[in-house]
């Protein structure tokens, strides 16, 4: 069963802006899917429609077989959403925000308090439960929104840029947490600008551009489409660069240059070749992440044909 089935979804805002132009997207139950795209591509509009915050213009949306027009209450019951921007009352106490959200889903207070305790402990907010939300740090506020989104035990968790603006440590702990949730069977739909996040966490990725899905496949298949990868090489001294001209070397400084290696080439052999040329390699690392490269390729419409949309 699909957790999300979107067909021919369009959205034209009151001002005439066409945000979505016939989006089709399916996310299997239990999957971890990334929705990628530049700012204004339509990611948040899709999430808004899925969660009932944006009215669609046409098309159909089903959440676990519940049509959002005909069965919106049942569809909403299985969704948890973490929005891009803070959307809680900053004057309310942390615990009340989570418990009230449970109440809106018809969960009795005893269960709601127990669930809030579990979620706040998991997200390391239990000690701050009596504070008003305004006093929390930015990262804590984000974790609070995740705790709130989980209080109805959703089968589908939708996160709109959950790690935007959070520090590296918190981002990694969030990845771990989301990975665990997905491991428990929760389907996750994530939008993010951190493409390493996609490669780390997601099994499916859809790329949206100008309101249309232009690529949608398993992440491992998408990664295969990256024919060449750029590496940064540090050596004791740069010599005989003309002999590696086939790797498109670009000198960065007196000890550092970039090269492009195809997927077929073995890194050990290339490093050995540099040694033969008299260059002792002191560091060797990929320049950027592969999804990022693919993402840029696709957005610039330079990708090869055959990416299933």
């Amino acid at each position: 069963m699909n957790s999300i089935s979107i067909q021919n979804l369009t959205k034209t805002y009151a001002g005439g802006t066409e945000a979505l132009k016939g989006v089709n997207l399916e996310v299997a139950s239990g999957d971890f899917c990334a929705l990628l795209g530049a700012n204004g591509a339509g990611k948040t509009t899709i999430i808004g429609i899925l969660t009932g915050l944006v009215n669609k213009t046409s098309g159909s949306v089903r959440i676990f077989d519940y049509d959002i027009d005909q069965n919106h209450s049942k569809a909403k019951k299985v969704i948890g959403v973490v929005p891009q921007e803070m959307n809680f009352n900053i004057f309310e106490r942390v615990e009340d925000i989570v418990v009230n959200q449970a109440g809106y889903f018809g969960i009795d207070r005893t269960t709601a308090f127990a669930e809030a305790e579990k979620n706040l402990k998991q997200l390391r907010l239990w000690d701050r439960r009596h504070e008003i939300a305004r006093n929390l740090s930015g990262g804590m506020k984000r974790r609070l929104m995740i705790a709130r989104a989980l209080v109805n035990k959703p089968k589908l968790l939708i996160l709109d840029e959950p790690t935007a603006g959070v520090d590296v440590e918190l981002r990694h702990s969030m990845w771990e947490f989301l990975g665990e949730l997905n491991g428990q069977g929760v389907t996750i739909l994530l939008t993010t600008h951190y493409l390493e996040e996609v490669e780390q966490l997601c099994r499916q990725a859809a790329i949206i551009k100008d309101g249309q899905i232009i690529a949608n496949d398993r992440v491992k298949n998408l990664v295969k489409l990256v024919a060449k990868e750029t590496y940064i090489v540090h050596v004791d001294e740069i010599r005989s660069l003309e002999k590696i001209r086939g790797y498109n070397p670009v000198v960065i400084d007196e000890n550092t240059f970039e090269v492009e290696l195809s997927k077929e080439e073995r890194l050990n052999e290339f490093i050995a070749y540099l040694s033969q040329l008299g260059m002792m390699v002191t560091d060797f690392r990929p320049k950027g992440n592969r999804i990022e490269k693919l993402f840029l390729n696709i957005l610039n419409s330079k990708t090869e044909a055959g990416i299933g949309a």
Partner: protein
Amino acid sequence: MTKHGQYIAYTTIVRKEVTRVLRIWPQTLFPPVITQTLYFLIFGKFIGAQIRDIHGVSYMSFIIPGLVMMAVINNSFMNVVSSFFSSKFQRSIEELLVSSTSNKIIIAGYVTGGVVRGIIVGFLVFLVSIFFTRPQIHHLGIIFPFVFLTAVVFALGGLLNAIFAKKFDDISIFPTFILTPMIYLGGVFYSIDNLPPFWQMISKFNPVLYMVNGFRYGFHGFSDVNVLASFMILVVFAAVLTAVNLVLLARGTGLKT
């Protein structure tokens, strides 16, 4: 959602609203009581002493029901308009919109919050009136339905205002330019029998007149208008406003893009 689930959602909204009213009591409960006390003092005590009895009751006694109703109207309206608009402004209304709470429950929850504040303030104002005169109670069975329905109608009006409001200015336009004149011209301080026929006729288009007079009947046993007609007007207003709010919430007017 099951009926029990909807009940839990309703009590959650009500608890949140009532907690808010009580938490910020210096803003929600105290100022209206002070204002109405000043009315009692200035209009009832100082000026009222020079005004002859109306329908056989002192001017102070005459204005008590009107001033209580004025407090109920203002506070039930303002509670919902400010709370709902603040939720829109802070986007915390999305907590409700993404949940499985039905629109009927959202309306019922916010309106109950408004009714609770309106009635608490109305009761406090009534308590203050005891310091100025011994209140008469003619028919409690009239007082309660009128005060309750009036609070419901104006809480629904506040919700309607909040749904359309886009900025904070928008939540003060209706109370300032429509609601306040309606209250002042709705027979709080006078009987329309004292007005020339033309103004009597104009006054009868003001729904507040029916609310104040129906309520006053419960205290003094007289009214400028038919009490049953007043009650029916309240019921019709409540039904129409509920229907309008339901349609607007279903469409997502002012809430969804």
